């Protein structure tokens, strides 16, 4: 029995979305953002906090979002409570666990929350995310000694390999940055709303070649929560429910020690087909695509692995005019983590929910019945996929 053909009493849906102020928002800790996001999500759904009987929590680099969130929210007698961590794939993974909990009857209304507060006033985003070890030791210390300290460098190594193998170009990576900024221009939640050109892209400073600044995600403070419940329960609530129709994860487990596919193929290649199969739909049925975009390159390789184009053809595909608000493929319609807000897996998930509900305003995609959402964590080590469906 798949989630799509379960009786309504057991069919998992997303009934609430809570988003705090996002971006350079100071003076609040990650746990404060997390609690606020859950309160907002419950209110969005039309639920009281006491209706929540399951809570899944996670956080980014600043930490502190843990099981104590139950107490901060005054939640009593929970039947599900856990902290989860699969990096950028966590948001999708939390929705999956919450869905299985309501399918089994273990819980009826599960809040899933992610929050982070890496930015403090006067500190740049890159400094906020860089390693600060004092005396590097052991194997990790060897990497630090070499200067290998940032995901920017590790993803750059992956991207360079893709470029060398398939002929992917900087112009093609830049096309993704430009297209996503075009979407962000239409998104009032976005941190960067000025349009950019391919020339702006090339003129932006090098971070780790082949990555310019405009290949890289921004850094944000804030928190986002969603409420997963059953279709039955969601029927009487405030928002149009969004069905969680299919899902999958993939964790290839190569860890860079010897990995022929590094940079060339990601977990999306297995998680994508598995999630579509569970949902009982084809890739061609997908109306909106929200891909995890820590870097332009991550989008490009994910497009290939999900099958939107052939392996190695992500570059020409991205530069073909298919992206952006006027393009045929409705991809990262909020501007994503490159231009809008960096809430790890909650960025693609939140925009997917907004689009599926038809609440995206100026950037609303006309057809939004089926939405594919990806999450990616580590250095292409962890992948989650969700297939969401607008209730009809």
């Amino acid at each position: 029995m798949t989630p799509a053909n379960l009786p309504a009493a057991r069919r998992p849906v997303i009934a609430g979305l809570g988003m705090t102020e996002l971006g350079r928002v100071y003076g609040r800790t990650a746990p404060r953002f997390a609690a606020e996001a859950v309160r907002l999500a419950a209110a969005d759904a039309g639920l009281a906090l006491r209706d929540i009987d399951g809570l899944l929590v996670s956080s980014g680099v600043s930490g502190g979002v843990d099981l104590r969130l139950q107490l901060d929210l005054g939640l009593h007698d929970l039947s599900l409570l856990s902290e989860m961590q699969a990096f950028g794939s966590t948001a999708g993974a939390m929705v999956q666990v919450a869905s299985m909990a309501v399918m089994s009857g273990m819980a009826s209304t599960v809040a899933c929350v992610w929050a982070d507060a890496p930015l403090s006033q006067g500190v740049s985003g890159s400094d906020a995310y860089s390693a600060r070890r004092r005396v590097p030791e052991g194997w990790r210390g060897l990497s630090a000694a070499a200067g290998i300290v940032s995901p920017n460098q590790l993803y750059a190594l992956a991207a360079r390999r893709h470029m060398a193998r398939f002929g992917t170009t900087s112009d093609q990576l830049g096309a993704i940055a430009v297209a996503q900024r075009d979407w962000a221009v239409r998104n009032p939640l976005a941190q960067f709303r000025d349009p950019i050109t391919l020339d702006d892209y090339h003129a932006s400073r090098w971070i780790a070649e082949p990555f310019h600044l405009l290949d890289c995600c921004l850094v944000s403070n804030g928190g986002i929560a969603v409420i997963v419940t059953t279709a039955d329960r969601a029927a009487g609530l405030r928002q149009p429910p969004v069905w969680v129709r299919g899902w999958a994860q993939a964790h290839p487990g190569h860890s860079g020690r010897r990995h022929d596919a590094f940079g060339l193929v990601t977990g999306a290649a297995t998680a994508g087909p598995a999630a579509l199969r569970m949902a009982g739909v084809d890739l061609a049925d997908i109306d909106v695509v929200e891909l995890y975009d820590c870097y332009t390159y991550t989008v490009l390789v994910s497009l290939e692995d999900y099958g939107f184009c052939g392996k190695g053809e992500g570059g020409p595909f991205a530069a073909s005019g298919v992206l952006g608000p006027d393009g045929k493929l409705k991809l990262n319609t909020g501007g994503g983590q490159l231009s809008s807000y960096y809430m790890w897996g909650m960025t693609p998930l939140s925009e997917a929910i907004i689009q599926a509900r038809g609440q995206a305003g100026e950037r609303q995609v006309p057809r939004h019945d089926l939405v594919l959402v990806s999450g990616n964590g580590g250095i292409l080590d962890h992948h989650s996929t969700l297939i969401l469906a607008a209730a009809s």
Partner: protein
Amino acid sequence: MTLGPVARDADTAAFFDAAASGQFLLRHCPACGAISSPQSAQCERCAATDLDWRPASGDATLISWTVSHGKPGTEPVILCIAELAEGPWWWARIEDVTPEELSIGAPLRIAYRLPAPDSETVPVFVPAAT
């Protein structure tokens, strides 16, 4: 940017001792003969945990590289993944080369650097002598 210092821990003591005398140690499995990465605590082929050490030849080929730019005013450095002749990959600095000279598959050699008097020895890659 110069190499930073690094300290040993229990897992890396043998590796750093060998590096100090110009050897790069890999893991060898007496049970199946496979060579694993130095940081592997179990054989990457048969999962045996009774591993010994085996010196690498020092030959490698370039898998990928990035020119990493630090804060304004600092010199960029070249970081790479290289495949050792014995199979495992190693992530490290490349020195004595310009980015223009690099291409994937290029032959490299392991060299050894002492970042600071009280640091352990750090392996780097340099172009193989032509």
